């Protein structure tokens, strides 16, 4: 197509040479938008400043525990006089919380915020990442004497040793003889002689259980684990099982009868108390049954050799002494010995009963909560209970049992260190005096 003649000169002559003095609307819009955008940004920041709020500078939502302080930045970000910085320091944390040291021999003490990082959203501050722990425990170094703890733990699934109570050579230090297998067998003789089948919770229950024991006694106060250990922190009353006590769990089947004359049992107490009880009891008895001071001797008549019947007349003291001796012989050498480790001196003195040494809490460095695990049958974790014959058997589940549920991955229960372990040694907790007011945190008038 032949077009109109367009020489370069003619093309150039079409142009208004002053065009650049009049900005095109496109450029004008671009200029004013470039002014407006930063202006809007400044106004946005200034609006917060006028409102007296620093929340625009927040690094993120506060944790659940500190959400109430979201509007009170200076509750944690304290600015020292003359200093520009207003970082949240450990002093700010310690003003409201005590954070006892973990261990006297630790090589260094991390800052509060290195493990408990705020402004990460609505999360539990105590739910720290494993790396908070493994920054030491992956290559454990201590001050002072060498540690007996494992030195290279990466996480629960990598490097975590078997629980200390189950390591080779570990035995149950308890001296009470208990055969779990016998107690769990079918057709066990019950309190009234009837055949029974025992279950785990006939003996093992949390202290606050209100269900009546099938074969137990209503008497006997429950003993909380916390009372028997030196852990001052509040533990769920259903976290641990109450210690098994004779008075509550055993007395119904294991009576302490001592003489056919009496239906009552001796008190479950020290040999001295039992001895005193026996003496008093028999003294009371013979005082009301003096006829028994005259005893016919045992009939040793043989068919072709009749012998005269021996007649013994005892004084009350003699009679009491003989009966006490017989009863103690029964008790020390059979009844008590069935469960207790006794050492009976040759000189006839009262025996010494070994301390029961029942372990109230097997893992003093870890927390466990039975209540959280009550969906499972007892024997799923304590698999050895049904077949254990020896007191020395430790019936705790090993780490492999725990790892069946507690492992990393989307299908595992929580397996991070904090689930079982606590960094702070709460036995050394100090009281903190609160300093904030409701109005000070914007919650009051």
């Amino acid at each position, binding site marked *: *197509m032949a077009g109109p003649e367009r020489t370069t000169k003619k*093309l150039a002559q079409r142009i208004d040479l002053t*065009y650049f003095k009049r900005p095109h609307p496109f450029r004008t819009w671009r200029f004013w938008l470039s002014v407006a955008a930063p202006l809007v*940004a400044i106004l946005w920041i200034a609006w917060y400043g006028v409102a007296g709020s620093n929340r625009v*500078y*927040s690094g993120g939502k506060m944790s659940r525990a500190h959400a109430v302080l979201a509007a009170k930045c200076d509750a944690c970000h304290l600015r020292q006089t003359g200093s520009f910085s207003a970082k949240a320091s450990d002093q700010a944390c310690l003003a409201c919380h005590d954070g006892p040291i973990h261990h006297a021999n630790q090589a260094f003490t991390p800052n509060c915020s290195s493990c408990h*990082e705020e402004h*990460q959203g609505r999360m539990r501050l105590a739910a720290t*990442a494993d*790396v908070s722990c493994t920054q030491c425990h992956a290559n454990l170094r201590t001050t002072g004497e060498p540690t007996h703890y494992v030195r290279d733990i990466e996480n629960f699934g990598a490097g975590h040793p078997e629980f200390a109570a189950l390591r080779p050579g570990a035995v149950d230090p308890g001296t009470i003889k208990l055969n779990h297998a016998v107690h769990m067998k079918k057709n066990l003789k019950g309190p009234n002689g009837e055949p029974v089948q025992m279950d785990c919770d006939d003996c093992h229950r949390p202290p606050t259980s209100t269900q009546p024991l099938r074969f137990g006694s209503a008497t006997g106060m429950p003993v909380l684990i916390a009372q028997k250990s030196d852990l001052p922190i509040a533990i769920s009353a259903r976290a641990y099982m109450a210690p098994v006590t004779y008075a509550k769990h055993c007395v119904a089947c294991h009576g302490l009868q001592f003489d056919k004359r009496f239906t009552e049992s001796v008190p479950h107490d020290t040999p001295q108390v039992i001895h005193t009880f026996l003496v008093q009891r028999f003294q009371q008895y013979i005082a009301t049954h003096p006829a028994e001071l005259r005893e016919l001797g045992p009939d040793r008549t043989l068919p072709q050799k009749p012998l005269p019947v021996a007649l013994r007349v005892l004084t009350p003291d003699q009679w009491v002494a003989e009966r006490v001796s017989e009863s103690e012989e029964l008790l020390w050498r059979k009844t008590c010995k069935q469960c207790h480790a006794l050492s009976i001196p040759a000189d006839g003195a009262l025996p010494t009963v070994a301390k029961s040494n029942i372990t109230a809490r097997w893992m003093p460095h870890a927390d466990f909560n039975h209540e959280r695990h009550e969906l499972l049958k007892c024997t799923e974790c304590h698999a050895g209970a049904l077949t254990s014959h020896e007191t020395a058997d430790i019936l705790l589940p090993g780490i492999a049992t725990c790892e069946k549920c507690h492992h990393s991955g989307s299908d595992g229960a929580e397996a991070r260190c904090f689930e079982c372990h606590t960094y702070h040694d709460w036995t050394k907790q100090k009281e903190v005096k609160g300093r904030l007011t409701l109005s000070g945190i914007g919650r009051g008038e």
Partner: protein
Amino acid sequence: MRIDNTHKKWFAASLIIFGVATAVYVPYAAHSPSGPRGGSAIGLTFGTVGSAFMVFAGLLAARKKVPVWRLGRAQSWMRGHLWLGLLSLPIIFFHAGFKFGGPLTSVLMVLVIIVVASGVFGAALQHYLPRVMTAQAPGETIFEQIDHVREQLAAEADHLVQSATGAAEPAREEGRGGLSLAVQSEVALDEKLAPLRNFYELEVRPFLQSGGKGQLLLSDSDRARAAFEGLRTLLPTGAQETGKRLEAICEEERQLHRESRIHYWLHGWLMMHIPLSFALLLLGCVHAITALRY
């Protein structure tokens, strides 16, 4: 700017920087007790580097405003703007630990994403569209002068058609028997050029005055060619040249329209990119000061 072999060194350097940054970030993120944080030493380093990249990218505007600045060639600045600006996005993500954080930091993250994304989009357009422009609008003129050139084309077309049709006004002579022979021939010529005038009035002038808006007959090259071919069959030999020149003017108008459209694509993204980048730099300064404080 075309992204060609001259960008190789910048590409290689950017790749190396990104690789080093990633190699530093991954173990840092894995071993940080509470995850990667902007306030940690490494986080602050990433933040500083990312901010430096963004500031350099922003200085391109100043460099363009002062072309006599002898601080490197304009092409080098442009390449630096492209590659360091692109790098700033992953570096800032490493700084933030891939978290958005609070109100100010969330706005900053959104801004940096939009600015970099629009920049990448614009770079892609600037790479491909100039060739399209050359192919589709060889008669390209200065964008700001398109309207002015359009006016000149319309005036030229008017003059062309008037020259061909409007000069011969039939003069009526009163007399015995009717019109004179000269007048009669002029009337006959006028009637032969009526298609030209009609076509011009109905199609060409509205098209030239439309400024490229609307879907008119002559907006499409093929339909316009067919229309002008049809017109030429109706025109006398003397008017054929006028028809051809009108067709050429219409083609120029279409090229101006294409040029305008391509220009808006080439530069329209800057309406978002530049204002938001200024806001980003300003808020980035605010963030740097307050984050260091708190």
